[in-house]
């Protein structure tokens, strides 16, 4: 009896260059994405916004230093976005606020991604009874009024987090004040946003599992882990990436929503939601306090949504947001 091993197959004799001839999914996707002007603009805008927020400590003015001689300065040359009630530069506050908002957006989405992908992959891979029970749980969780629970958690866990903060202060981490609140934001938002990701990943794993190339890989005698990580995961990465880019704006929106209700980060820190809240209280006389943070926040959401839509079209994934 002749045993066939992968290296006996004709394809195995081709050099790596020859194998790379075909267009990969990613190269196709990149070509399509480049044609989509809106998505490209969104991507560039995000890059600019992200860089200016990230590099704010190197060029922006102080976001916490009061300047009581210059309160409520109108937007001008010295202060592009004007100043607030304590004379703090609004541009600096928007950039520093962006650091928090973007960080919450990224980390909470990552938390959601991690929970969603592992849950969905387990349910999809094992199938059967386990899958049925796990997905029924997701269905039930979907029906819960989650925003309400996030609000309750943020209110009720505020005091324990202050204890945590003062513990940090006593142990020489004074600059880490307010971290407790941010961790709380990551955890609560991440714990809410994973449901759709779990559904998407499960559906993808289920459909990939039945495909012929998986059977082929199995018949070639590849190990189970190799099949999962070399063959299954790269093929579900597209939808996961698309959905993650669409999760980030909804996470940032939820963070801003909480901040607007007074449940976000505390002074002197700022986030976009908090700046919008403060601005809306003073907008009658000082319009810039509302308009600039609101515009930057909306612009970011725009870019993320356009980029997400563009990626979805580019990767040709049929997933709906809800």
């Amino acid at each position, binding site marked *: 009896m002749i045993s066939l091993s992968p290296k006996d197959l004709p394809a195995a004799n081709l050099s790596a260059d020859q194998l790379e001839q075909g267009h990969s999914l990613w190269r196709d996707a990149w070509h399509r994405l480049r044609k989509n002007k809106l998505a490209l603009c969104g991507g560039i805008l995000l890059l600019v916004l992200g860089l200016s927020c990230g590099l704010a400590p190197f060029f922006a003015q102080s976001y916490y230093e009061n300047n009581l001689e210059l309160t409520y300065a109108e937007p001008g040359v010295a202060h592009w976005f004007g100043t607030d009630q304590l004379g703090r530069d609004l541009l600096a506050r928007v950039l520093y606020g962006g650091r928090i908002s973007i960080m919450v957006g990224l980390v909470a989405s990552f938390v959601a991604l991690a929970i969603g992908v592992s849950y969905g992959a387990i349910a999809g891979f094992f199938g059967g009874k386990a899958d049925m029970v796990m997905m029924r749980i997701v269905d039930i969780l979907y029906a819960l*009024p989650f925003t309400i629970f996030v609000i309750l958690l943020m209110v009720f866990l505020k005091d324990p987090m202050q204890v945590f903060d003062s513990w940090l202060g006593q142990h020489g981490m004074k600059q880490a004040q307010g971290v407790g609140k941010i961790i709380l934001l990551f955890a609560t938002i991440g714990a809410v946003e994973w449901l759709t990701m779990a559904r998407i990943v499960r559906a993808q794993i289920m459909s990939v599992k039945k495909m012929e190339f998986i059977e082929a890989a199995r018949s070639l005698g590849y190990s189970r882990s190799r099949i999962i990580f070399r063959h299954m995961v790269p093929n579900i990465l597209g939808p996961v990436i698309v959905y993650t880019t669409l999760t980030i704006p909804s996470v940032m929106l939820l963070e801003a929503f909480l901040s607007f209700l007074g449940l976000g980060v505390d002074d002197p820190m700022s986030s976009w939601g908090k700046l919008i809240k403060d601005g809306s209280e003073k*907008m009658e006389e000082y319009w810039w306090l*509302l308009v600039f943070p609101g515009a930057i926040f909306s612009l970011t959401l725009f870019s993320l949504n356009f980029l997400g839509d563009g990626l979805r079209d580019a990767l040709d994934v049929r997933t709906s947001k809800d």
Partner: protein
Amino acid sequence: MLRFIARRFLETIPVLFVIITATFFMIRFVPGGPFTAEKAVPPEIQRNLNAYYHLDDPLWKQYRDYVWDIFPKKFRPQELAHGLDLKAAFGMDFRPSFKYANRTVNEIIADKLPVSLELGVLSLAVALIVGLPLGVLAAVKRNSWIDYLCSSVSMVGICVPTFVLGPILVLIFAIHLGWFNASGWYEPIDRVLPAATLGCVYAAYIARLTRGGMLEVLGQDYIRTARAKGASETRVIFKHALRGGLLPVVAFLGPAIAGIMTGSFVIETIFQIPGLGREFVNSAFNRDYNLVLGTVLLYAILIIVLNLVVDVVQVWLNPKLKFE
């Protein structure tokens, strides 16, 4: 159909039970109570307060008694005609509020819920009245400037959050133009800005979904058949295409209703509307246990029941779904 409704209805009971249990134990287990925030009260008064609110009972007893109190014990919906008294109509007693002396949670709900419901219904109406025509128009005039305009407008609606849009509308229409009051909920005209703000986001989503749904339907054979029969374009669109094209919109109504309810927390804060949403957020800040539990349960019931209604409508429009 009846069996479908009955099954879905039975499924909601354990869900509500889980919600009330989770909320109950969550607020009991976190440190800090409703009376710790204020200046320390003498121990006797504290004891009396605890006794009045049954906080001195063992936890399991508190839980059992609470669940029994809020459990619907009768069914007389006709009582609702005299006012929104859940105790008279269903025998659900949400107990006294911790924060407002001499007021029960039932009274607060009866007071505030109609306001929030009115806001919600008006917002949903705005969303449908604006969203549907925009979506149909965009689909019919596909790839024309009208389509692009509609799509851009709906993208703006999706990306400008309500808490940015609301204050900006106030700034323009109330403060600069003076057409409306900046806040309050007294005259019918006070409803315009809040409902427009809250409805706008959902109008945008509905326009997108309608466009997508219509485009898919308009390409199908039965539409060609209708055209071949000589039906007018208006008839094709409104009689034949719209019913199928609306399916994604109906599916979206469930999440939209939940979103409008939670969105009202922010809208009621911006426009100073005396509704249940603002009351819920305040009750959480005040640790008004009974009010938190009552409002959470009420919101959960509303969301679940309305979702059930949406599901039934969906199955009615598209019987294929029953078997999935």
